[in-house]
């Protein structure tokens, strides 16, 4: 989890703000790289981080044999999460 938080801070505070001016010398298609991170890249990374975390924690729960039993609602999420 610590690793995920490091990535979280890295793409936003790091690439998006502190290093943005320096990264702007590189380009990603029509974007300056620092500008892209601060306006779109960081958001895309955040989405990935949350799903990676949910997937990892789901696995930890399974290993501990405490798979939750309360199946009130069986929906899309059950396929995704387990």
């Amino acid at each position: 989890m610590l690793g995920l938080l490091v990535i979280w801070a890295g793409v936003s505070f790091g690439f998006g703000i502190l290093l943005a001016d320096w990264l702007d010398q590189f380009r990603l298609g029509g974007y300056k790289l620092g500008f892209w991170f601060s306006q779109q890249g960081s958001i895309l990374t955040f989405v990935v981080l949350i799903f990676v975390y949910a997937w990892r924690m789901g696995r930890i729960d399974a290993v501990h044999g405490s798979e939750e039993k309360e199946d009130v609602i069986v929906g899309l999420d059950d396929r995704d999460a387990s």
Partner: protein
Amino acid sequence: MSAQLLTYIFVGATFALYIGIAIWSRSASTSEFYVAGGHVNPVANGAATAADWMSAASFLSMAGIIAFEGADGARYLMGWTGGYVLLALLLAPYLRKFSKFTVPDFVGDRYYSSAARLVAVVCVIFISFTYVAGQMRGVGVVFSRFLEVDIDLGVVIGMAIVFFYAVLGGMKGITYTQVAQYCVLIFAYLVPAIYISILLTSNPLPMLGLGSTVADGSGYLLDKLDGLTTELGMTAFTDGSKSTIDMLFITAALMAGTAGLPHVIVRFFTVPRVRDARISAGYALVFIALLYLTAPAVAAFARINIIDEVNGLTYQDAPEWFLKWEDIGLIAWHDKNEDGKVQYRGGAALSPTKPAFSEERGEFGQRLVTNRPTESDNEVYIDRDIIVLAHPEIAKLPNWVIALVAAGGLAAALSTAAGLLLVISTAVSHDLLKKTFMPGISDRQELLYARISAAFAICVAGLAGIYPPDYVAQVVAFAFGLAAASFFPVLLLGIFSTRMNKEAAIAGMLTGLTFTFSYIVYFKFLNTAANTPEYWWFGISPEGIGTLGMMLNFVVAFAVSRVTPPPPQDIQDMVRAIRVPGETQVRDIEATSEDTLAPASRS
């Protein structure tokens, strides 16, 4: 059909839909009223969270701010999405495991203290009202411009709708209404963006259109925009003008604030299982990202179109949208060089920046202002809040798209207002009455009090709409600062530190809230003349001060917890149990916590 008639049809149809859903899903018990019985599907909860949390500020204001500030606007983009990472990784699953109805409920039980619960209630009510006030201006703007009714009447209509489904439906009604509102608002945001993206860049995906080449073959869109802005003496679009430290602090305050906002956290109490809370935060961010990845594109497109349309415009040939927004006072033109043409340049046109209109008209028919002109060549004031609403007209899109945007803006404002009002009413009926002053009341009575306080909160919010505050996004940004400074540290330490006790929590919350509140009030209301970087502490603006308040809260809480007795053993055991994987153990703790932790017997 005219844009106004279409707007009536679209707004009327969506309102009918919301009321229909409210009747279908009305709440019968407090559990349904507070957390929809805890039976909401995580995908539905994700959509509801997205609508709950994307307010008039996200929908109406954000793209406008980015359009005018360029790179600096990133603080909203990152701040309002990055908070979900904190929420999903550090708070939502644990709070869900604790199985409570409200945030003060968690604070009161975790810190075994009615006093802590009361402080939390005060924070919740304060934050939520600040935030609601921001929504009401959005409702007023949409109504006055598109339905051409009086702003006050517009606010009253909006309040009546929210009253109906929030008071009747509670969380259950609100949740399913919000799912519908999400669909309306995202559709309304994407359709004009896609339209304009195709017109400008030939790329049907606005998120990618931002990085594409312009359709007329003059290179990349962002390069063209940088060229245009520099040429007119404005800051280049992809360059920022805010200091790095201020950007850092504002972004951090918005992130921690998002994670600490009571109306967002409470949404994660509505899903059936802990792992649903985790995945639900992911869905919420996907739904939010859909709008947030589009917003910078909308901003850049709008800036290009506005420069093209406005600069060099002869006032007598001004398009209808320009005149209508001028009529309601959100555009102003002061003809400094008296040539009858609009010069759009860098810098503010007027001093003070916001126009104050006299009753008279100038020689070209423009509304005259009483503000002093500035040294700058810029002659035009354009309110940032109008960009999203005005852009479809500026880009000459068909009338139905314009009507759709109006309905979307209302969906965004109403969904957030409803979520906030519910949090306020719950804080009063559950935390203040049931858990503190009137522990003997029955479920039915508590439900009645919840409805009464929701009704009362709606009336207060309505007043805020009739006497609206400043920019929507800025007002809302303060709510985030306060949430970051009060709740975030207390929740985080409450989950991850067994040593955190009630003294530390109360001291921390009060320090954070008082400090942040005083700083904001001083610079924003008492001494507005000093609201410049030279006078700010460490160069941190009032918008970003929540981060410093949060740090103070952490420090104070840590220090106080070391010099006061540790919490009772059962609390420490409970904190450990919250972090154990799985759910079974906590079900037992939840059952006993009601008896052993009843605040009246403890503190």
